[in-house]
Structures are given as structure tokens and as C-alpha cells.
């Protein structure tokens, strides 16, 4: 009994549950789940926590983290920081110096580069109960590589990487976004905006040229016509459910083979 309980606990923090809606969105945009998550991780930078200047991709990524932490409302102080408080404060002081208004003409890329040294110092000093490994396995074959920035953000807010990743994935729903867009309603979801950017090539290196099957072509035709076909459905929730049905069906046919 004890063994079962123990193994369940370890599995819980490591195993990443990929929401169906996220899988569906990746299938429709022909993205690999691992790639999208890795782009997200790579754009989470500690420096953007301090400097609020808009930084394409990076601002959205850090906001996802901030929103998750705020929603969790867990105000206990990180043990990991307690043990290296001096180093931590020194390094954060350095980051604030870089973010000072007098450096405002520097590009964000440069400023992030300058911040790297301080972040590496924190990373060396900090204890890592939440990110004991740099790698997170999604299945036997694919894993995500955690950056020092990402690990530090897990430690200072007492969160497991899985929590951030699942929050990111959970914010994505094509059916919901398209239901709002079709009814011309504002869709305030910056995580989705970030996902859309990745879908159109942001942060990815593989050129997105795909051979589409007959079935897929039919689906994309249908997808383009759907806003018109559903014109008479004026409720967001109703539209969302209808779109969701069609998108899920496509996901199922694509994953049959």
C-alpha cells in the first residue's frame, strides 16, 4: 500500500497531462506538441519579470507564468530562495540595474543577454526541489529541456514545471477562439495569441510546408466556411460546442491511422 501511494505521488508531479483541446489545436495547425511546449519554455525569461517593455513572445510567456501564480494565490515564501538569499538579492539587484530607464534605448535582446550572467549565478546557488531534472519526459521518446530561467521561476514560486505547462496548454482552445472571432467579440487571451504566433512560425525553425491529404483539404475548406455556415448561431457557447464537435472529429480521423 505504501509503495503504491509513493509511486502515485512521484508520477503526479512528473506526468504531464495534455488536454484534448490542445492536442486538437496542434493537429489542426500541424504542430508537434513537444515543439510548441519547448518554444514556450524557451521564451520564459526571468528578465522579463522585471522589465515590462513589450518583448514579442517573451512578454506573453512570462505573463502566462504570472497569471498562473496569481491564480494559485499561494503566498508562502520559497525555501529555495531562503537558502541563498544573499546571492539571490545581489543578482536581482543586477537585473534591476539593467532594466533602469537609462538603458531604455538598448534592445530587449541585448538586455536579456546582459541578464544571463546574473541568472546563471542564481541557478548555481539555488536548491531545486521542484525541478530536480532539466529534462521532462512527455513519453518514452520525447522530452522537454528546461532552461535555467524556467527552473528558477518554478523554484521561486514553489511550482512544478508541469503546472506552468498545463496552464499554458489549458488556455488554448481553437473552438473557443473561433466562436468569439465569428461573433466579433473581443477575445482576451494572450496565451492564445502567443500560440497563434507559434502556429505561424514564431520561434520555430522547421519551415511549415505540409503535404495535405484529401481529407485534410476538405477539412480546411470546411473550417474556412464554418463561420458563414454558423452565421445564424449567435450564442458563443452554442457556437463553441458546434465548432468543438467538428474540430474533435477531425482530430479523431487524423489520429486513426
Amino acid at each position, binding site marked *: 500500500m505504501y509503495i503504491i501511494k509513493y509511486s502515485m505521488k512521484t508520477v503526479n508531479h512528473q506526468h504531464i497531462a495534455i488536454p484534448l483541446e490542445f492536442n486538437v489545436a496542434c493537429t489542426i495547425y500541424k504542430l508537434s506538441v513537444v515543439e510548441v511546449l519547448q518554444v514556450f519554455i524557451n521564451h520564459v525569461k526571468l528578465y522579463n519579470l522585471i522589465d515590462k517593455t513589450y518583448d514579442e513572445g517573451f512578454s506573453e510567456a512570462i505573463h502566462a507564468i504570472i497569471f498562473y501564480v496569481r491564480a494559485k494565490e499561494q503566498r508562502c515564501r520559497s525555501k529555495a530562495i531562503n537558502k541563498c538569499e544573499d546571492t539571490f538579492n545581489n543578482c536581482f539587484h543586477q537585473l534591476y540595474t539593467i532594466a533602469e530607464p537609462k538603458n531604455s534605448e538598448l534592445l530587449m535582446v541585448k538586455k536579456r543577454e546582459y541578464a544571463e550572467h546574473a541568472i546563471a549565478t542564481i541557478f548555481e546557488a539555488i536548491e531545486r526541489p521542484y525541478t530536480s531534472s532539466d529534462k521532462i519526459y512527455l513519453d518514452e521518446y520525447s522530452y522537454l529541456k528546461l532552461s535555467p530561467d524556467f527552473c528558477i521561476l518554478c523554484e521561486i514560486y514553489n511550482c512544478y514545471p508541469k503546472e506552468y505547462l498545463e496552464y499554458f496548454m489549458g488556455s488554448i482552445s481553437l473552438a473557443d477562439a473561433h466562436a468569439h472571432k*465569428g461573433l466579433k467579440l473581443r477575445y482576451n487571451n494572450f496565451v492564445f495569441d502567443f500560440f497563434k504566433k507559434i502556429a505561424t512560425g514564431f520561434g520555430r525553425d522547421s519551415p511549415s510546408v505540409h503535404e495535405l491529404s484529401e481529407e485534410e483539404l476538405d477539412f480546411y475548406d470546411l473550417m474556412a466556411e464554418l463561420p458563414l*455556415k454558423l*452565421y*445564424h448561431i*449567435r450564442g458563443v457557447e452554442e457556437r463553441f460546442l458546434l465548432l468543438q464537435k467538428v474540430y474533435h472529429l477531425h482530430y479523431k480521423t487524423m489520429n486513426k491511422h
Partner: protein
Amino acid sequence: MQTTITLNLSEDFSALCCIYQIKPDVFLQTLADQISFPSYYSNPMGNDRWATFCFLNFVQEEEPKYQVDRVLEERFLHELDAVNDYNIYASPTEMEKSKIKITEVMNKWLKEVLSNRSSYIIKNL
């Protein structure tokens, strides 16, 4: 209802009409005949669906420029959806029934719009 409309025909459209020897007014008349919510929604896969599609696309894209009573639109579109029995196995007679019901909804909608407009005018006398 008869109307005399003056239109500027684009080069491409008049070229096509010339090539296929179609009188522009005949073509536009056909197009206008096919724009119909009752026939589209009672048979969305019908061969005559494209003209209504074109109309819907116009409304979807250009709507902000036109004044539409949103609340009424929502109410009657909902009603339209509720009376429509269309499904992919619907037989022609069933489609015809749906078409009649939708036409009734459209008439009610038009009546409501007109009565709202006339009461608006009277109020401002």
C-alpha cells in the same frame, strides 16, 4: 418588387458575361433569386446555396457599416434555428416543410423591423 438599379460592372465581370454570352441583368437576376434564408437553411447543401453564402459573407465582413437591430437579429435567428428540422437525411418533403416554417419566421422578423422603424418615425414627429 421591381427596381431600377444602376451598376458599374467591373471589367472582369463584363468580360465573363461577354465570353459566355450572358446578359448581366439575367445573371444578377438569378443571383438575387437565390438569396434566401428559407431555401438556404432548409437545404444548406443545395446547388443554390452559393448566392446566400455570398450574402452571409457580405454581412459577416461589412456588418459594422450597416445598422442592424442586434437584439432582434439574435432573437429571430434563434427562432429560425429552432423551427428548422434540417438534417443530412432530410427528404425533399421535410425540407419543404422547414422552408415554409423559416419563411414564416422571416416574415415575422420583417414585420417587427418595419413596425419598430415606423414607431421610431412617429415618435420623432
